[in-house]
């Protein structure tokens, strides 16, 4: 059964802990306690078909963990991930069949391609594994088509990854991701390792592919400008939680959460309007000892006693939700 009009991907109160305790012997001898790092906590959102949802945040905010939870590279600690209306972890679900419909593109095009394989084989691997081509001839044709689609020449298939620049390697990663005919692509910082002019090429390519193939993207990035360019909706994460989730235009025109505002203010001003940038004091707190209440309160100029004591919930519709007491109380 597939939900025709429902969201393609749905996360319900998803959480993931990592055990970062000292080794067992140390715990026994020194009495050190077990320590759990809550990398992702209570994250819920939906991604509609054909939409691009971006997750942004600083290092350690949990955005890449969310990406890995969705494609199944990590197991969930709490919550539920649904794809096309079906719970990926439910006993009756054919999870592998669902997972075939999603693919992932990684940040580092130097680490994500096997250096000993020819590009043709790298791109053909998903086709072989999933049995998508009946004959060697059909496979060859399909790989050639994929290479063309991402802006590479068919002859490039005979080369090895080291013969390509970073941007071209990322094209190869995209061709590989597309070779299994996915509907949903999870892109984890796909352009952060690239130079800006190459980044522009890859972002343009991703936009074209989305239009042509009707793909749905989850786009993970720390770069707000890139996100503003590619996303339909944006989720801002801080210390494992989504603090604001809104349509891109709305978020960038009028950010509501103080952390989103801070991130926007921290972007270097390329227009050189001379507007004074207020560098925010402080850093992301240690996730092993997160602050009480709202995790952002130690850095927040609007924090009051309620913020220090009570954790705000993400309130509002999917087109503009924010987790902030100050916004809820209309103080800001």
């Amino acid at each position, binding site marked *: 059964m597939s939900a025709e009009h429902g969201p393609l991907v749905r996360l319900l109160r998803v959480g993931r802990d990592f055990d970062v305790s000292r080794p067992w012997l140390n715990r026994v001898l020194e009495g050190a306690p077990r320590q759990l790092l809550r990398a992702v906590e209570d994250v819920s959102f939906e991604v509609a078909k054909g939409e691009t949802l971006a997750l942004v945040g600083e290092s350690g905010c949990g955005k890449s963990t969310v990406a890995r939870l969705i494609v199944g590279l990590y197991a969930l600690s709490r919550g539920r991930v649904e794809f096309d209306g079906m719970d990926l972890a439910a006993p009756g679900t054919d999870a592998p069949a669902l997972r075939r419909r999603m693919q992932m593109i990684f940040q580092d095009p130097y680490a994500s391609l096997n250096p000993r394989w020819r590009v043709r084989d790298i791109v053909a691997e998903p086709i072989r594994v999933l049995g998508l081509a009946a004959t060697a001839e059909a496979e060859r044709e399909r790989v050639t088509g994929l290479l063309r689609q991402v802006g590479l020449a068919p002859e490039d298939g005979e080369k090895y990854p080291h013969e390509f620049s970073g941007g071209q390697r990322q094209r190869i990663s995209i061709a590989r991701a597309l070779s299994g005919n996915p509907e949903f692509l999870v892109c984890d910082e796909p352009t952060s390792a690239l130079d800006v002019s190459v980044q522009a090429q890859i972002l343009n390519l991703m936009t074209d592919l989305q239009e042509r193939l009707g793909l749905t993207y989850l786009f993970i990035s720390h770069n707000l400008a890139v996100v*503003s360019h590619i996303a339909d909706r944006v989720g801002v994460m801080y210390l494992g939680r989504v603090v604001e989730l809104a349509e891109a235009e709305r978020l960038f025109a009028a950010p509501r959460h103080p952390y989103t505002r801070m*991130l926007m203010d921290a*972007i*270097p001003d390329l227009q050189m309007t001379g507007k004074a940038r207020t560098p925010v004091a402080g850093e992301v707190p240690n996730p092993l000892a997160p602050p009480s209440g709202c995790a952002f309160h130690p850095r927040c100029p609007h924090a009051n006693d309620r913020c220090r004591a009570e954790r705000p919930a993400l309130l509002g519709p999917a087109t503009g939700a924010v987790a902030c007491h100050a916004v809820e109380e209309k103080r800001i």
Partner: protein
Amino acid sequence: MSAPLLEVRDLRVEFPTRRGTLVAVDGVSFAIAPGEVLGVVGESGAGKSLTGMAIIGLLEPPGRIAAGEIRLEGERIDGLPPERMRRIRGRHIGAIFQDPLTSLNPLYTVGDQLVETILTHLDVDKAQARSRALKLLAEVGIPAPEGRIDHYPHQFSGGMRQRVVIALALAAEPRLIIADEPTTALDVSIQAQIIALLKRLARDHGVAVMLITHDMGVIAETADRVAVMYAGRLAELGPVREVIHEPRHPYTAGLMGSIPRIGALQRHARLVQIDGAMPRLNAIPPGCAFNPRCPKRFARCTAERPELLTVGNARASCWLYAAERR
């Protein structure tokens, strides 16, 4: 503009290899005045970091300065014996690199490292050195330096570590600071703090700063002038405002257009795209290095290498600005 503190003229850095000599920096000239921040921007492999390394005398063999000269306060510093260069490097030139963790010795406290640097280069006793170290840590914005000075580098966060590295670079009161991607490893909110700090230090101490980065946004906020490098050569050099708002070289124009900006474009609109990639060092085309990718190419571009031509207050190495176009 006052007399330049650093002057680089026709710098050429070569790497001899078995398959011929690679020219990584080719005919680069620029100057930096005291208190000025010169941004050097370009994509990976453009030669910007090697230019910085050549200036501080840390080119890795077999890389070598093949031609040109580098003058610090009028005195030539290229080709000095390693021992003399080492003294100059510590005393007159401070360096800040991208990764603060590899710039600090993990086995010594930050205080030890600061005190050692100060004692090596300045004529002070140990107590004075320590109080200077405390002052430096406070100046770079480390809260409660008395409590942090005896900590080891791993006890600091990334942003705080980069502050320690900046304090180290400042320890001997250098006249020139070479900062190579100082904010690249940091999160945006921390980046803004470090940029503000660098800018303030240049202004307050009259230090000349060479800021090497691939991030035009950082340059826009920090630099007074900017040098754009492409394939080891200077493409454009001028006041930062002009280069950003009115780029003269087609490469600079393409580079500026390819940067995504919030609110500048319709969502999903295509970014300006420079097709192709920067040539490899063993395959730099004749004439202008950018010509195969250039939308405005004409005959002369493929035949003759352009020199830096004056356009307004800036200079661009592009034949578009030659008086007579052949």
